[in-house]
């Protein structure tokens, strides 16, 4: 009897040891790995890779975006403004990818400047780390986090136009930038009017506090979710980006809307995720940023760690049911096949 228990224990340990590299996103760690090591590492999260993958030899960039002509390309950072080495390392990866991808703007998910708003804070936590990007003409569009002084809206490099909430358009995409630290009736009315009158093919909202999150520290803001999701669903918002929780999360589509949490471009709350049914992918062991390319009705994204490892990538179909204009839906849905849907959301990727 004791022998059986002993062998069963040995067998389970061996199983655990052999499965540790592929057991899921939360156990994979890119921290401390060099770019050379990461190019050989097992991808910690579901990733399409496939024909779009341009992964090459050591030291080369692992690019998973199609780089189609006239596409909208941008980067995403959240909770970035620490001024620590890790923020600078993420910024260097961003610049390396910019040279290849050619994105010309970055969206900021809040907590842009931690610990004060003295001029030296702006220099050390924004102007210096992103200098190569700024020098290359890349524009940053900031949203306010709870660590940000609302006076940041006056800072031109954040392109907020002096407002706490605003919108801007790039190609067929409109971005609605909200101040989730202060969601008053005025802002809600503004958002509804903006969403209602927008005729963009893609509607993307971003703000600091996540509506869905498996982070242990904060979790989702349920009060905000109750107010915002009916508007998002009514007026066809396609994608929502949030920060605040210092991890990376991709949530399974909720009523046709894709939700991402990216709050670890400077800060990190290590091993802070608990996996739930709503999580599509997660990463909580290093900093990262995201690259996004939108072309037609497809959104390609690639999430890249501080060390250059691709920790998540996929292509997302714009969900027809979130589109309030039937004309647009017909135009962009006709070339979608069932096969593509299977590729986009493989059953085995579901937790």
């Amino acid at each position: 009897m004791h022998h059986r228990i002993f062998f069963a224990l040995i067998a389970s340990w061996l199983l655990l040891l052999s499965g540790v590299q592929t057991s899921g996103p939360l156990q994979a760690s890119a921290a401390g790995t060099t770019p050379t090591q990461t190019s050989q590492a097992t991808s910690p999260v579901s990733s399409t890779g496939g024909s779009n993958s341009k992964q090459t030899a050591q030291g080369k960039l692992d690019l998973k975006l199609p780089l189609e002509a006239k596409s909208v390309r941008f980067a995403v950072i959240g909770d970035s403004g620490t001024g620590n080495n890790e923020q600078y390392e993420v910024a260097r990866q961003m610049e390396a990818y910019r040279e290849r991808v050619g994105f010309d703007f970055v969206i900021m998910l809040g907590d842009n400047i931690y610990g004060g708003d003295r001029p030296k804070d702006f220099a050390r936590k924004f102007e210096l780390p992103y200098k190569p990007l700024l020098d290359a003409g890349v524009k940053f569009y900031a949203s306010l986090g709870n660590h940000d002084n609302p006076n940041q809206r006056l800072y031109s490099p954040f392109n907020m136009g002096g407002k706490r909430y605003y919108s801007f358009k790039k190609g067929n995409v409109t971005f609605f930038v909200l101040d989730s630290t202060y969601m008053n009736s005025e802002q809600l009315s503004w958002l509804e009017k903006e969403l209602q009158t927008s005729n963009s093919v893609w509607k993307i909202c971003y703000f600091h506090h996540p509506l869905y999150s498996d982070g242990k520290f904060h979790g989702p803001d349920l009060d905000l979710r109750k107010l915002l999701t009916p508007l998002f669903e009514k007026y066809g918002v396609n994608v929502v980006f949030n920060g605040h929780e210092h991890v990376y999360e991709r949530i399974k589509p909720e009523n046709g809307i894709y939700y991402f949490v990216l709050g670890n471009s400077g800060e990190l709350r290590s091993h802070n995720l608990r996996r739930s049914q709503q999580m599509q992918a997660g990463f909580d062991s290093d900093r990262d940023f995201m690259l996004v390319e939108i072309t037609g009705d497809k959104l390609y994204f690639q999430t890249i760690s501080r060390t250059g490892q691709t920790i998540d990538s996929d292509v997302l179909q714009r969900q027809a049911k979130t589109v309030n204009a039937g004309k647009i839906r017909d135009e962009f849905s006709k070339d979608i096949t069932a096969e593509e849907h299977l590729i986009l959301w493989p059953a085995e990727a579901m937790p």
Partner: protein
Amino acid sequence: MNVLKASRTRTCVLLLVTNCCLLFARTPSQGSPRVNQDSLIIKDFENRVADYVKLHKKVQAEAPAPKRTDSAAKIKEAQVTAAPKIRTARPEAKQGDIFTPEISRLFRRLIATPLKGPDGPQIRASLRHAEPVDGIHLRVNAPYPEGVPLQSTPPSLLLNLPPLPPELEYRIVGRALVLRDVGANVIVDFIPGAIPSA
């Protein structure tokens, strides 16, 4: 006789119905003084806020904040210039100048209502998840401490409070509701214990 009796009965019934009608008709008018009282208190609050904003604008006119600038130094300079001018302009300001006892009572009620409702647990969860700020010694006219996060105010609470002009905002610090001058980063007034304990 029977006719008279019947007539009396009819009259009694009629009187009873009339009285009932009058009683029900009076019910709303009995409630309206309460409603009017709340409106008066809110009007009083709005007037006090308007007076402060007048002062704020006067100070801003002397040292205008940049509309937009590449220089973080200019933004900071505008903030640190405005704050002492505001303090000088209201040297006797104290807690309760804007949030008078009457206004504070109404605000406490306005905050408690959604917290006691079906969404109360969600609102409290939002408060907990928003990096609660505590341990700050609140003083009217003092700056909101640099580097301390501004706790997000749950939207359900915000929607229940009288709206503010863009120069001012509500913030929660511990269990207090703070009225903050956004541009000058000054604590204008506060209500201690505005958030009822769970």
